[in-house]
């Protein structure tokens, strides 16, 4: 057992404990760690953007390759900041329109392929219990969300089957969410016991 002598491991460990102290009750240590996380994340994000976007996508092509076409997306990007000035804020609609238009154009053909594969996968290509469950699940869930008919009689019974499938899906999602949260806690405890306190290897 050897406690870490690394200054940064200590900082990480103390910040971890500060965040978990919220479980007891809200306190200044938690607040400090929370604000620090937000600030550092934004600062770090900006530095990554600077090196990987401004330098590689704007500065290098302009200065070294003399590619002046880069000025067009640069100008469009800068127009987004016009929102901060009331009298010219309408100019920000130009890059937004460009993004919406290009995004829709890119998305429409791919979406068809994306959705058709999903529809195809719900078709019973072989007669087995799995295919039956999929078909019943899809149809009854769709009926549950069909509000043009009152949910009584046959439609009501089918929609009840649909809500059962929905509940099973919620249960699976909830179970996985618990697993995810516990995993994060395990990760932090592994760090504290191993990297910081040296209790486990």
């Amino acid at each position: 057992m050897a406690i870490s002598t690394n200054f940064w491991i200590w900082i990480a460990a103390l910040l971890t404990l500060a965040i978990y102290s919220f479980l007891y009750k809200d306190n200044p240590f938690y607040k400090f760690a929370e604000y620090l996380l937000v600030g550092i994340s934004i600062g770090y994000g900006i530095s990554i953007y600077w090196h990987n976007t401004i330098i590689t996508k704007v500065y290098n092509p302009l200065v070294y390759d003399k590619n002046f076409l880069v000025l067009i997306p640069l100008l469009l990007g800068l127009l987004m900041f016009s929102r901060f000035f009331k009298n010219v804020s309408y100019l920000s609609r130009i890059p937004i329109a460009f993004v919406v238009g290009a995004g829709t154009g890119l998305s429409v053909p791919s979406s068809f392929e994306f959705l058709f594969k999903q529809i195809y996968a719900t078709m019973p290509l072989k007669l087995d219990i799995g295919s039956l469950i999929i078909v019943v699940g899809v149809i009854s869930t769709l009926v549950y969300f069909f509000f043009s008919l009152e949910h009584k009689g046959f439609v009501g019974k089918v929609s009840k089957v649909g809500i059962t499938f929905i509940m099973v899906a919620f249960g699976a999602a909830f179970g996985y969410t618990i697993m995810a949260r516990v995993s994060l806690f395990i990760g932090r405890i592994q760090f504290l016991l191993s990297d910081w306190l040296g209790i486990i290897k």
Partner: protein
Amino acid sequence: MNFFLKLSKIDRRFIYLFIALVVVLPLILKPKFPVVVSKPVQDVYDYIEKLPEGSNVLISIDYDAASMPEQQPFLEALLRQLFKNKLKPILIVQWQLGAPLGTMGLEKIAKEMGAEYGKDYINLGYRPGYVAQMVGIGKEIRDFFKVDYKNIPLDSFPMMKNVHNYNDIALLVGLEAGATYLAWIEYAGGRFKQKIALALNAVSAPDAYYFYQSGQIVGLVGGMKGAAEYEVLVDKPDLAVAGMASQSYSHLVIILFIILGNIAYFIEKGMKNKEGGK
């Protein structure tokens, strides 16, 4: 009866303490816990095992520090398998805060496996505009990644000389903490028929199983449990396997609390109904 009523009013901090104990103790005592490999994880492993030597595998880091315990063990296990099979990882990043995590994992395993930068693997770093990038890689990867993460031109690396688009990439592995994987399936998979394997945070995993069922992805690794299965497959149990006992015991405790909480709820409801009846 009184026991259940008292339990329904228990201070939530006792539950936290209980969970902390069942997580910490197994990590210290290290009980043996079997890890059973599921089919979606086995399929990812098998697909990679069948790739010919020298194939390029594009790894997309689409997570950040908040998902590190779930994604980092899988990244390391995957890289061990790739280097062992003489496959060539090409690392890109869609979440800018994931850039150091991807680099850290890649450098660690490359050193361990004796891989050489630019010849056996490459790190292209982060670029903005992920949808444009996913579509653009279908044409020419250099349109988005002219240089690597250290600003060195791509063509100066031997392994990148013949890599231009998805045709030169045998498999795309997305390590996903959010919904970026939907765009990978839609654009790289749907439009360019790129084979895709996914490793998702446990929170997102249930939403991706239908892509596995429809054949839009070759396999799926879900959360720390999936990472533990992969560590078993590559025969190098590490942090994810070590966490499985804590994971299982904490789940048992949570199930127990859910059952007790429900019993307490129904008893309390029954008592209120009786009082109302009087």
